[in-house]
């Protein structure tokens, strides 16, 4: 994704119009795009447009869809459940973007600046790998692991709380409306924390130590150096982490399905689970398509905003 955003289509840069193969026209190269584009059309483009169409229909999966204009969309705007699901998405963003990015920046800086320099690179690499470990799990399995610890009867967390005399805090973490969302957030923080640590540590190796030394000679303390030099140099990585994390947070599905199915009540419902349950449980396919389309619009709009913002900051950086 880093490459995706940074080596992508850059406006204004001149690129050679000729193919890299001399002496042949480029028309023949189209042949190589045919399988890829054909599959892409069938698996992504057609379903996407079809789904948008379904959002304007009443369709229960049996009789053919019936066009009903904007009815689904007006219903959506007034649907409290839908707005709850987006509010919960905001909580997912806190858990997958805000907290991991802030903590990840701190951890990466400590590992890179302090641990690697004073205690050895091996220890720093080992700690980085440890933080990264939950990232490799299927997210539903990660949820089951944390869910097991949060079990209501004899669960590990409740047992620990009782052991240290905080037994009054023990509760049914996933089963009560006021802690279920928090529990899901813990799963996501645990899963996500290693991602910014790894990306930021790679980015920090780009920082020229001489810049630091110069700033140090000028009397800047660690925090001043960090905020003035480090942050501005690793900004591209921060864009990547925030963008990919936000998109992922909006799509969270596995942990919800594995642990709470949106409950208790609607306390942990998210748009993708809401759409899924409309499709396959309530058989309200038209309305499910509306939710899915709304989610898609938000995701695509966010992507465009982020990329424009990134290009703009790159331009400003270059002009400076």
């Amino acid at each position, binding site marked *: 994704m880093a490459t995706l955003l940074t080596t992508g289509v850059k406006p204004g840069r001149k690129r050679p119009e000729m193919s890299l193969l001399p002496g042949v026209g480029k028309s023949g190269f189209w042949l190589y795009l045919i399988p890829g584009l054909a599959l892409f059309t069938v698996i992504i483009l057609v379903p996407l447009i079809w789904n948008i169409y379904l959002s304007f229909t009443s369709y229960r999966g049996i009789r053919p869809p019936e066009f009903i204009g904007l009815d689904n969309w007006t219903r959506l705007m007034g649907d409290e459940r839908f707005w709850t699901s987006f509010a919960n998405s905001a909580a997912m963003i806190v858990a997958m973007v805000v907290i991991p990015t802030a903590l990840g920046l701190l951890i990466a800086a400590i590992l*890179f600046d302090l641990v690697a320099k004073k205690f050895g690179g091996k220890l720093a690499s080992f700690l980085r790998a440890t933080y990264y470990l939950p990232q490799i799990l299927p997210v539903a399995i990660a949820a089951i692991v944390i869910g097991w610890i949060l079990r209501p009867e004899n669960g590990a967390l409740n047992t620990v709380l009782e052991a240290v005399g905080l037994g009054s805090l023990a509760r049914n973490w996933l089963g009560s409306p006021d802690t279920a969302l928090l529990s899901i957030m813990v799963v996501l923080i645990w899963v996500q924390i290693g991602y910014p640590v790894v990306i930021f540590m790679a980015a920090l190796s780009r920082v020229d130590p001489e810049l630091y030394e110069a700033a140090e000679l000028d009397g800047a303390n660690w925090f001043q150096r960090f905020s003035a030099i480090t942050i501005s140099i690793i900004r591209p990585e921060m864009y990547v982490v925030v963008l990919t994390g936000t998109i992922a947070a909006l799509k969270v599905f596995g942990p919800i399905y594995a642990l709470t199915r949106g409950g208790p009540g609607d306390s942990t419902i998210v748009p993708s689970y809401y759409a899924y349950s409309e499709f396959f449980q309530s058989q309200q396919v038209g309305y499910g398509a509306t939710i899915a389309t709304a989610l898609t619009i938000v995701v695509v709009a966010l992507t465009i905003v982020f990329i424009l913002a990134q290009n703009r900051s790159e331009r400003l950086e270059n002009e400076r």
Partner: protein
Amino acid sequence: MSTTIAPVEPTAQKPSKPTKLPRQPKYLEKKPKKNFTDWLILVVVIGGAALVAIPFLIIVINSFKSPSDYANGGPLSFPTALYFDGVIDFWNRVNFPEKLWNSFFISGMVAILAVIISVFNAFAIGIGRVRGRVWVLVLFMVANTLPQEAMLYPLYFMFKAVGLYDNVWSVIIIFTVVQSAFGTYLLASVFGTFPKEVIEAASLDGASRWTILWRVIVPISRPTLSVLLIFFFIWTWNEFLIPLTFLVSNANQTVPVAITALQGDRLMDVTTTSASALLGLIPTLIFFLIFQRTLTRGITAGATK
């Protein structure tokens, strides 16, 4: 993870770049001074790492306890006697080898097919520089971010209509497309910087495009291709929503779906549930251990080109 339509899943996107740790300036090379604050901060980051690691350890120790051992000793004690029935029981109940094979077959096929499609696309875009390539890339890039729900029901309908519903090939086809959208993007930029002289030389020797692709470009890009192959494999292994929707019968399920399906089953006692999580963890931990070096080597090779 999640990536793009799928591939941009968070979990997915973390090609772990190798980090070069800073080399100390010469005058510092012997034992830099460590003061009290340094030690304190070290303790804090180690504590954080321990917090991340503890759930794994808890699952491991509890998977080898009998339910009565668990009831007596609680979740934090070590097992009084090693008890394998939980693991064996769950292994048999889900027919774990079958699920492993399904996951392995799906992920392997997707990885191979998606790399091939990516190579073709990137050859046309990066080497051939076909007209409209910018738009094709934009298309693939947007596709990378789409939520899978936006295609889910029509795909379900289509695969039912052609008789591939509840067939591993439905999932293989979908993820081949999804992963190759990301792969095309990445490879197109790699191929775009391919040394021109090499291709020209081959072309002067009379090699056709097809030959140049397979005899020159693919062998030289092998490090990048193997990294893509591994990423596609792991990302597909970790996928959840599409396999859950398309593989409804037990015999076709993947590892994450099969394990999730049995959570909350009344036959699952507490330590068997722990064992189920353990069986879900192990394959990905093994991939991590096997591929860690390959990944680093592959990316470094790509970076030094």
